[in-house]
């Protein structure tokens, strides 16, 4: 008697994620982050309730991949737009997905105030230490010594100040329910990052406050590196300066009042 071998898919993409090629560069981590968002939305039953806010950067086209109701925000303003969305439709599940130029430079006021008010939406912050879409200019999170098109000699503390550690700042706000930093450079870190994204979403669902996840990611093209070398840079250079971890978590405690 022959036992029939039955194989089962060991990996399935969530339906809300468009099954198509992305426009992102080889080795860019956006695709991984998009998939984590899609998985968490699906697992938490949020897909049909979601109104998302897209930001300006390479990920402006996220709405081609995450098929949920979406409004496009001006550069940096996604947290303000999301505030308007959530106040207008409190029953919706609302998140923004922003890069480091968008969130930490032009949008710094909007993100800090939304976090401080404890707005009930979640933020995915993809930090690759550079302005990707516009060709590799210096960002607030560019590391000291890192060369970009607008600091060709390398970022210098005296001239440009130190890179911003956004998660640490956000975690200090009273009305924040969850603030964490993960990365996408290893399978272990990806799995950990997914838990963080899920928790940031749960912060909204449970009314625990503002939910925030920073994901360290690569930009091989603008770092002038191969995808593999760029991936290595995350652990070698970025994580030492931007430590991974959960910086605030009151999601399972009583809601922040």
């Amino acid at each position: 008697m022959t036992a029939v071998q039955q194989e089962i898919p060991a990996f399935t993409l969530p339906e809300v994620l468009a099954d198509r090629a992305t426009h992102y560069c080889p080795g860019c981590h956006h695709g991984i982050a998009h998939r984590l968002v899609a998985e968490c939305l699906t697992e938490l039953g949020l897909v049909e309730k979601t109104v998302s806010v897209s930001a300006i950067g390479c990920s402006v086209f996220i709405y081609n991949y995450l098929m949920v109701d979406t409004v496009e925000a001006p550069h940096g303003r996604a947290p303000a737009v999301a505030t308007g969305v959530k106040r207008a439709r409190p029953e919706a599940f609302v998140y923004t997905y922003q890069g480091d130029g968008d969130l930490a430079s032009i949008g710094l006021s909007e993100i800090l105030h939304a976090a401080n008010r404890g707005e009930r939406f979640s933020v995915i912050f993809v930090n690759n230490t550079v302005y990707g879409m516009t060709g590799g200019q210096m960002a607030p999170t560019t590391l000291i010594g890192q060369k970009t098109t607008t600091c060709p000699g390398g970022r210098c503390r005296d001239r440009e100040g130190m890179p911003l550690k956004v998660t640490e700042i956000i975690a200090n706000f009273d009305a924040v329910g969850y603030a964490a930093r993960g990365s996408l450079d290893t399978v272990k870190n990806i799995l950990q990052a997914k838990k963080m994204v899920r928790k940031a979403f749960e912060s909204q669902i449970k009314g625990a406050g503002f939910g925030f996840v920073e994901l360290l990611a690569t930009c091989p093209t603008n770092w002038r590196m191969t995808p593999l070398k760029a991936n290595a840079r995350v652990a070698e250079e970025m994580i030492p300066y931007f430590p991974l971890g959960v910086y605030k978590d009151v999601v399972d405690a009583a809601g922040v009042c």
Partner: protein
Amino acid sequence: MSDRKTEKIFIKGNEAIAQGALAAGCRCYFGYPITPQNDIPEYLSKAMPDAGGEFIQAESEVAAANMLLGAAACGKRAFTSSSSPGVSLMQEAISYMAGSELPGVIVNMNRGGPGLGDIGPAQGDYFQSTKGGGHGDYRLLVLAPATCQEAFDMMIEAFDLAFKYRNPVMVHGDAILGQMKEPVQTWTPQNLDPNEAADWGLSGAIGRPSRLLKSLFLEDGALAGHNRKLQAKYKAMQVEARAECFETADADLVVVAFGSIGRIAKTAVRKLRSQGHKVGLVRPQTLYPYPSALLRELAAQGKRFLTIEHNCGQMVEDVQLAVRGLADSEFFGIMPGDLPTPDDFEQPILDSLRR
């Protein structure tokens, strides 16, 4: 929907704007302090939550205008208010709302400029409102109230127009209107439709395909097509042009003035009429679309024009454009920083009449 009773109350123009918005079913307001419109956020900081709505004093006008964008994207009636320098900050969001076809309402209580200017009235933002203070080929519907009653009424109209055309609407007042107190008859529209945005607003894609509201069009031909669509819409908006005509039928000279200046000019015209002078007034109530056809008709009757504004000459260009080939318009301006009275207009009107 509001269950407020109709009543006659004695309120500032700023408050009339706030109450008009509530009467129109608006339940989202995002603002920022700036003189001379602070009564609007202050009144709504209590009245909006009392009505079950959302009030936010945002961290900046930039943020307030973007919160408006978000709420409008959900198909909800929402507005923001500011004054000239703050409205400058809002231009990016306004351009985005126009490009994304979102029905946000923005109130500008015009003060003196440019820059920090002063805190008194002016009309120096006419170009900003009508020619687009933000980037790109877009137009706002612009309403110009001259009385506190009109301020109340026009807020209701603003929301109706915004949703009718899926376009941002500007209500253009000034410091005189904002700070002046007059009797206002409040009323509640009976035709409010909670589903007015059901076929495009964002609400979560339950049982339908997901929706996308954006202004970025990179594919070949896409932006061109979008711009053509917007231009067709602006053409269709022309039917909304409206103006008050006062004693124009047999006038030799027609004064053209809007907002508070229109009201002051009306007093001057009334006085000169009582002295036997054949003058009249056209007071545009929409600054966009502009009542060009009306002016052109008057020009065809051989009338002459004097545009009076509280600026260095802005609307006069639209008057000249409207009557070109048939007539011209002279201009008399009160400088931003000066406060006009009806007496200030008498001599310029007489001078124009006699020329």
